[in-house]
């Protein structure tokens, strides 16, 4: 069915179809729309979820853990400071191997306080043990929400999943998207049979014991394995999704990469604009392509290096800063992926769009020109560049 919805509504719609047993909510802009919409579904009896209006994000994540450990499907959603406030508990969710799904509407982290989009919030917990899947638009946010449960609950994975959508740009923009019938979505998701539920009097279990140096390491090692396995599972679920709903999803999307010598790498909504710019620049005769990372955690290192094999200059676009003194987080991951695999490639970082600063087609055009010049001259002036900022 074609429906006009905002990104938040699209995610809430997926949640309605998922009909989780427990949803814990706490408001924060720009996520609030998801939970308000979901509260309507609850109020109108369209879901039979236990809807918990919490006292904070910290408690929301805690309750989601309590419910998931109990043996049911449990969800929450957040943004920015809300995610930061959850941080301690976010790590615990992953280490208990709980298949929680959480939409995160990306918003800049304080301070200074800012309600608009960048990726600093989710980047702050990129190594928390959660799978992170980025969306380009409402359609993808919806599709990712539908796929997330199957990934999280896969026995080889058993890890929580964040699906992200860019604050305001996706969350508040009205778009027409294809939604699928309830029973088809339900069938795709399947039933959840928890392995070690807390609520099972005949077989009591302990979650969260004290784990000393004699076992902690082994448990963390197993958790890391779940993340490695997730790569395969994300692709499998993507293929199953394509079969069912005719939209294809993998670890990342390659756009006009077949013969490209130059490439852009982006995350999230910027991919849409960047594809249009790539088309225009192609007309000028540049051999340029684009990679949109969908699955940011686990990071598709090998596959990415393979896809970039023929690339001479690569622009990595980061919508967040890393304060390690050497550029943004995506830039660092991409460089690490190429290290030892492709020594020839020049990788340049373009940090843009912090705190909702607009990124225009012209900005991206300039980045394309820039990497073409680097290709021609062989010289990188500066490996970290700030786009659209007053210096």
């Amino acid at each position, binding site marked *: 069915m074609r429906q006009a919805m905002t990104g938040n509504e699209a995610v809430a719609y997926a949640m309605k179809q998922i009909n989780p*047993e427990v949803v814990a909510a706490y408001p924060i802009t720009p996520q609030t729309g998801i939970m308000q919409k979901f509260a309507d579904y609850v109020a109108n009896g369209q879901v039979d979820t*236990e809807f*918990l209006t*919490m006292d904070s994000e*910290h408690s929301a994540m805690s309750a989601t853990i*309590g419910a998931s450990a109990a*043996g049911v499907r449990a969800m929450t959603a957040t943004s920015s400071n809300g995610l930061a406030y959850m941080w301690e*508990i976010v790590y615990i969710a992953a280490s208990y191997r709980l298949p929680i799904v959480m939409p995160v509407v990306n918003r800049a982290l304080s301070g200074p306080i800012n309600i608009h989009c960048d990726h600093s919030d989710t980047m702050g917990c990129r190594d928390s043990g959660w799978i992170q899947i980025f969306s380009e638009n409402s359609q993808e946010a919806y599709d990712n929400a539908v796929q997330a449960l199957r990934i999280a609950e896969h026995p080889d994975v058993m890890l929580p999943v964040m699906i992200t959508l860019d604050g305001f740009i996706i969350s508040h923009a009205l778009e027409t998207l294809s939604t699928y019938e309830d029973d088809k979505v339900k069938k795709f998701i399947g039933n959840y049979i928890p392995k070690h539920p807390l609520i099972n009097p005949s077989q009591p*279990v302990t979650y*969260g014991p004290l784990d000393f140096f004699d076992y902690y390491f082994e448990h963390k090692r197993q958790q890391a394995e779940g993340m490695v396995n997730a790569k395969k599972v994300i692709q499998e679920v993507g293929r199953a999704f394509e079969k069912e709903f005719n939209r294809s999803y993998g670890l990342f999307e390659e756009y006009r990469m077949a013969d490209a010598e130059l490439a852009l790498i982006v995350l999230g909504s910027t991919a849409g604009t960047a594809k249009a710019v790539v088309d225009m620049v192609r007309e000028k005769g540049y051999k340029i392509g684009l990679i949109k990372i969908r699955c940011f955690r686990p990071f598709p290192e090998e596959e990415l290096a393979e896809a970039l094999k023929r690339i001479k200059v690569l622009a990595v676009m980061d919508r967040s800063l890393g304060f390690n003194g050497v550029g943004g987080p995506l830039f660092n991951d991409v460089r690490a992926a190429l290290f030892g695999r492709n020594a020839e490639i020049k990788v340049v970082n373009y940090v843009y769009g912090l705190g909702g600063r607009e990124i225009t087609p012209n900005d991206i055009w300039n980045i394309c020109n820039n990497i073409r010049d680097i290709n021609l001259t062989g010289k990188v002036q500066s490996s970290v560049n700030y786009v659209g900022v007053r210096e």
Partner: protein
Amino acid sequence: MASLKELSAREEIVAPGHRLCPGCGAAIVSRMVTKAAKNPLVVACATGCLEVSTTIYPYTSWKSSFLHVAFENSAASLSGTEAAYRALKKKGKIKEDIRFISFGGDGGTYDIGFQSLSGALERGHRMLVICYDNGAYMNTGIQRSSATPRGADTTTSPAGKEAYGKKEYPKDLTACVVAHDIPYAAQASPSHWNDLMKKVEKALEVDGPSFINVLSPCPLGWRYPGEESIELARLAVETGFWQLYEVENGVYKMNYNPKERKPIREWLEKQGRFRHLFTPANEHILQELQEYVDKKWDRLLKLCSITEEANKTK
């Protein structure tokens, strides 16, 4: 209430072999509380002595299901579990009647966990929250908490040349909880086991949130020999430092009113953490503490009669 015979026939939920100190109040309290429960339990616990000493992987002392998430969120975490249970019940996926109990020390309940406790009470989850109040952050090495009595020597409120230990009086958490208008709240002590277990039974029967603040002597933090725990708990009650009362639907009831309250000194002098108060320079603190206890006691008696009266005229 169940007879002693019945109680002794019930399975122990907290198995022996845990690593709590000999004489630890929290050990006694958690055994009594879980023994008073007739239904299968899901127990949540905040980080602290009770949690770290009973669940050292790959062992666990808990024969019920057990959930520990973090220090400040046992009530919030158990909220989710209780909601999941309601969802499963609604769908007919679970038949048994399960009860939910959250344990936390005073640090995890009076201080860092206060918000999550308040939220859980306000949302009305059917769960019993137990605070085992040993009056300090024992697990991290006896630091003062907002439950620590005035005058106590702790590692962050040490007595010294210029200081007599903790300056502030303890926060009245039970009063804060009562202000949430929940169906049942009480204070109890392991020295009065009958009273304590009766309260747990009552609390588990109410269809909503309930709370019991239980005094839990700590030989290490209070500095006394482990075999005196129950005696110290009893003295806290006999001196009026710890009052046994309950508040059912807003009506206060004193459960134990000794004919003659013992002077607070008798409780204080048995504990190393108050030793420095027994010097001429600190004599005034002892006096102030006695006045504080008296005032609290009078206030409580008044609350009992006022609320009982108000209830009658309803």
